[in-house]
Structure formats: structure tokens, C-alpha cells
């Protein structure tokens, strides 16, 4: 009887792909990621598979999109309105501290119209 052997590569790449169906970005998210080792990741937003061996660090903003009906009847993607400020302190070999401020949707659109409000919002206290 012939034995079927699952390749490690298939397993390593297949697991995140299997998990991909579990969710898609429906919420706004700011993601900082540091890896020391092996990492195989799939972003539901872009469907890109990324593999890293060794050290890797990245910062990603995931902004959800919605379908917008145009006057011509076609649909196009529209990104969520966001105004944000992020301040991160990353010391060596220690945990970081984070300060984050963001406005979304109508609040972000109102903020853009209000210059004084925007200035106060983006002030780093």
C-alpha cells in the first residue's frame, strides 16, 4: 500500500491559507508586527502570502472598503474615511508604548472641514 506523505512546505503554506477563510477585514486596524524566526502570513485584504525567515518588522494600516454605486450604474470600491495619529516608542529589547488617536466615518469628514478641530486633534499631548 502506498503511503501519502504531506510535505512540510505544503503544511506550512497550507495552514494559513486554510485559516484565510475564517475572516476578512471588516474593521479598521493598525497592525505592528515583529518576528524573529519563521513566519508565513496571509493578509485577507490583499490575498498576498508573505514568508519571512529571520528578523522582520512591519507596520500596516488596514482600511476596509465598501462598494459604492456610481451614477452610471457601475460599482467601485470606496475606502473608509479615517484621520489618525499614531505615536509609538520602541525601545531595544523592551515592550513599546503606544498613543493612538483616530476619527472615522462622518466624524473624520467633519474633522477635515474644521481646521481648528483638526489642529487640536493632531496635537501631541
Amino acid at each position, binding site marked *: 500500500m502506498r503511503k501519502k*506523505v504531506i510535505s*512540510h512546505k505544503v503544511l*506550512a503554506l497550507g*495552514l*494559513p*491559507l486554510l*485559516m*484565510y477563510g*475564517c*475572516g*476578512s*477585514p*471588516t*474593521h*479598521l*486596524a*493598525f*497592525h*505592528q*508586527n*515583529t*518576528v*524573529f*524566526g*519563521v*513566519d*508565513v*502570513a*496571509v*493578509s*485577507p485584504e490583499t490575498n498576498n502570502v508573505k514568508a519571512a525567515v529571520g528578523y522582520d518588522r512591519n507596520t*500596516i494600516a488596514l482600511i*476596509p472598503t*465598501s462598494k459604492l454605486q456610481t451614477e452610471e450604474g457601475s460599482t467601485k470600491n470606496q475606502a*473608509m474615511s*479615517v484621520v489618525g495619529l*499614531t505615536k*509609538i516608542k520602541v525601545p531595544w529589547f*523592551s*515592550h*513599546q*508604548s*503606544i*498613543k*493612538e*488617536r*483616530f*476619527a*472615522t*466615518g*462622518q*466624524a*473624520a469628514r*467633519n*474633522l477635515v472641514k*474644521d481646521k481648528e*478641530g483638526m489642529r*487640536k*486633534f493632531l496635537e501631541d*499631548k
Partner: protein
Amino acid sequence: MCRFLLFVLCCLVLGVSSCALGPYGLQAARYTRTATATVIEVYSFGGTLRILDEDRGATLGFRKSAYVYEREKLSGNAIGQEWSFFYTPNPVGAPVCRASTSVGIELQATPEISRFGLGVLDQVISIGPAIGESRIVSFSYDRRNPAVTAVYISHNLQEEKQTHEKESN
């Protein structure tokens, strides 16, 4: 080689008797309540299966995960810190920030990313509202000192202006 790796994996699973399923299991959590935030830091070792929607996945090894929530408005809990063992309930609702450090094998299936990792993995994720929601969120979180965590969430600009005025006063 394959069998040896499988043996090492089995030893890790069986040798380390601790395991956790969701909020139950051999894990410890430190609850830090500030005036505006609740921070839950969960320490687990061994096999951990996480079923919380925002942090779905599994870990084999050590993991420290922290969840930052807006403080419950009607909470009767006093400001301060307390430890909880074996059962680590989370407040209702989604956290505004999630931070984790894991050493070992990590499987993650959250809405932001799906991954398989081996080694040291550190991540901080700030979670905003769903598309179409109008909200202003402001928070600060120091992973070394959760007692200074602050979270403000408001749903319109007027409310945010009042918050700023209160802060400046």
C-alpha cells in the same frame, strides 16, 4: 527526521501539562483597571486555544497577550490591579488594542491576518470601528506599565471637543 520532529512536538504537548481553551485552563491573568480603561494581561504556557473572535488562534509555547478595553461605564470594580487564575473572563465588546508576545509555535486566524509562526512573534494591533461607523478613539497604552492606560471613545466631534476641554482643564 520527520518522526523525530513529531516526537519533539508530542513531548512538548504531553510534557508540558498546561493547556487552555478560551478563558478556561492553566493560565493567569492580571486585570488592571484605570479611570478609563481595563487592561487584561493573560499569561499562558503550553497549548493554548483562543476562541475569542478578535484573537482567534492557537499557541504551543509561551504567550503573553494583553487586551485593552474601554472601562465599563457601570462597572463597580475599583481602580487597581488583581490577578485571576484558571478563568480569565473578558469584558463585553471588542478591545481597542491587543498586544501579544509569543514564543513557540503560533497559529493566528484573526480578521487582520492569518499566519503560521515559529519563534518569537510580537504584535500590537489597534482595532477601530467597522466601515460606516462614525467614531473618535483616543488611547494610550504602555506595555510596561498598564496602570497609566487611558481610553476615550466618542461618537461625534462635539463630544470629542468636550473631552479635549476637560483634559486641558
